[in-house]
């Protein structure tokens, strides 16, 4: 590992593999070189470039919390060449890691506010980093609601988190699925109507949402109905990335590079170009 070349990854070791759903896995990983680990910091919402040497690089957020630095975590849905190779990883395998990149959830904006987290599918990954961060500094925030949904009970990721949050008294936890199954006794319904039914007050509140584009689109509408202004809504933009540092041009949309200027934005910042390109 050389000093100042931003494209050179750290070598990391996989410590644990968790099968979240049929096509999503979470990986716990750690620096091979302790001195690098000591220097490393990140903030909730930031992402990194992960390599499988011989296959290539792909972009995922760091899904663990910076308040819990024992190890790092990332979660991957199997979708293409690199993610398929990542899904083959076993405990003890090595990956490349460079980052953290991008901006982060605006903790200064969130401090002292009520928080509404709305996550869909694997979109909970960046949110859970922030949720654990909030739980670990619970006194700094008002009421916290988490609404998480997936297509079916089998598609719910991070079940261990959902359970922990549900049991604890730090947050109000709501889980919903689009379609239940025989064993499902919980809530059934799409995220936006469920959100409207919960009906959190927009007063002194910030909503943070992440999920598939179609969910985001309707969640934004529901939040507007509940009185949230574009400035009170924080979301992450999904765009194809490669370099992670605002050079390769792939994630350029409007005058921003999602990787360098994002991926975290208030809805106010992106509503102009969101309409046409998404």
């Amino acid at each position: 590992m050389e000093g100042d070349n931003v494209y050179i990854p750290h070598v990391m070791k996989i410590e644990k593999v968790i099968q979240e759903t049929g096509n999503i896995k979470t990986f716990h990983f750690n620096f091979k070189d302790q001195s690098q680990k000591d220097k490393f910091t990140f903030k909730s919402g930031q992402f990194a470039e992960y390599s499988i040497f011989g296959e290539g690089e792909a972009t995922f957020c760091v899904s663990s919390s910076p308040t819990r630095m024992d190890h790092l975590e990332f979660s991957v849905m199997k979708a293409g060449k690199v993610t398929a190779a990542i899904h083959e990883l076993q405990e003890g395998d090595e990956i490349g890691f460079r980052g953290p990149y991008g901006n982060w959830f605006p903790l200064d904006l969130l401090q002292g506010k009520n928080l509404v987290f709305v996550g869909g599918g694997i979109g909970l990954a960046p949110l859970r980093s922030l949720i654990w961060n909030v739980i670990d500094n619970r006194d700094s925030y008002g009421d916290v609601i988490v609404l998480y949904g997936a297509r079916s009970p089998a598609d719910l990721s991070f079940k261990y988190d959902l359970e922990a949050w549900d049991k604890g008294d730090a947050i109000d936890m709501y889980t919903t699925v689009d379609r239940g199954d025989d064993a499902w006794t919980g809530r059934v319904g799409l995220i936006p109507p469920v959100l409207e039914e919960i009906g959190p007050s927009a007063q002194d509140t910030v909503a943070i949402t992440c999920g598939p584009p179609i969910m985001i689109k309707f969640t934004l509408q529901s939040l507007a109905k509940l009185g949230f202004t574009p400035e009170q809504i924080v979301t992450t933009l999904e765009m194809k990335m490669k370099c992670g540092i605002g050079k390769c041009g792939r994630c350029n949309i409007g005058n921003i590079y999602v990787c360098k200027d994002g991926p975290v934005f208030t809805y106010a910042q992106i509503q102009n170009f969101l309409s046409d390109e998404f």
Partner: protein
Amino acid sequence: MGNKKIKKDQLNTLFNELSKDCSVLVPTRSKGYIGFDLWDENNGDFIGWYKNTTIPLKANFFPKVEDMFRFNKGEGGYEIKEILPEEESQIIFGVRPCDARALKIIGTLFADTYKDPYFLKRRENAILIGLGCNEPCDTCFCASMGASPGESQDVDLLCTDMGDELLFETVSKKGEDLLSNMRGLSDSSDGDSSKAKELREAANNKIQRKIDTSNLKEKMRANFENREYWENVSMKCMSCGICTYVCPTCHCFDIHDENNKKDGLRVRNWDSCKFPLFTRMPMENPRHEKWRRVRQRYHHKFEYYDMNFGVIACTGCGRCIRECPVNVDVTQIITGIQSL
């Protein structure tokens, strides 16, 4: 230091001398297209025919494919070995003002926030000797892009073709140092300078193709959602990457690994926003439709780059117009927007 000049028939001797200390690149057409290649006496005739290179100067600093590092899996796991460009210094002779300007424009991005060591290292080690254009091409529109065919502030030395002689003018400190070490040159007179000035003005006046860049950013923003316009102008586009790859300011790239998990290279290569795959994600592609990709290219150059770096990412070199197999013409597209 004053300016210098040299008789054209002395150029061979000059290049031979310079080649002793570093590599000297000059325009050649030995490969079947025009590009910069190592000087040898056989390719010294370029002054007679050279207009500009087919592939822009950017390729010498940001090559179509380059090695970034080697990964190797040994007993202790992966070892990574950085591969940086060679330190050797390089003189590139015959750089056209549009391309020198383009290099500066993309250099801003490569140096912004995160330094790109590959581009910057090569740039650091290169000395650019510009060659002003006395005879701009039919496709040139540099004069509309804040530049002029015969002038450049983005090279180290600037040459002007004076007929039998070449005039060398100092632009940068690097250039001044080089000029003071060049042998076989004589001092130039005030008369030479005024003759060069006339030649430049004449060249500037020869430029036929023009675009209007005033309020262009605003105009483009206002028409961003003008789907009809973009569908119309993109209809004939074939979605190949020629315009982006011959563009001296297009700088998008991809990163790949050699298909070998034990021992291989990570490389980066040119990529193009004209390709549907450029923005394709597993679940969606915001620019699946051709007109959206065409729109992206022009907005990136003429609006976003200007917003971010205060300069339009187009120098009016005209390569995209010349090389496009279906003659998509950027000047027509921009003029069309201005007339909306």
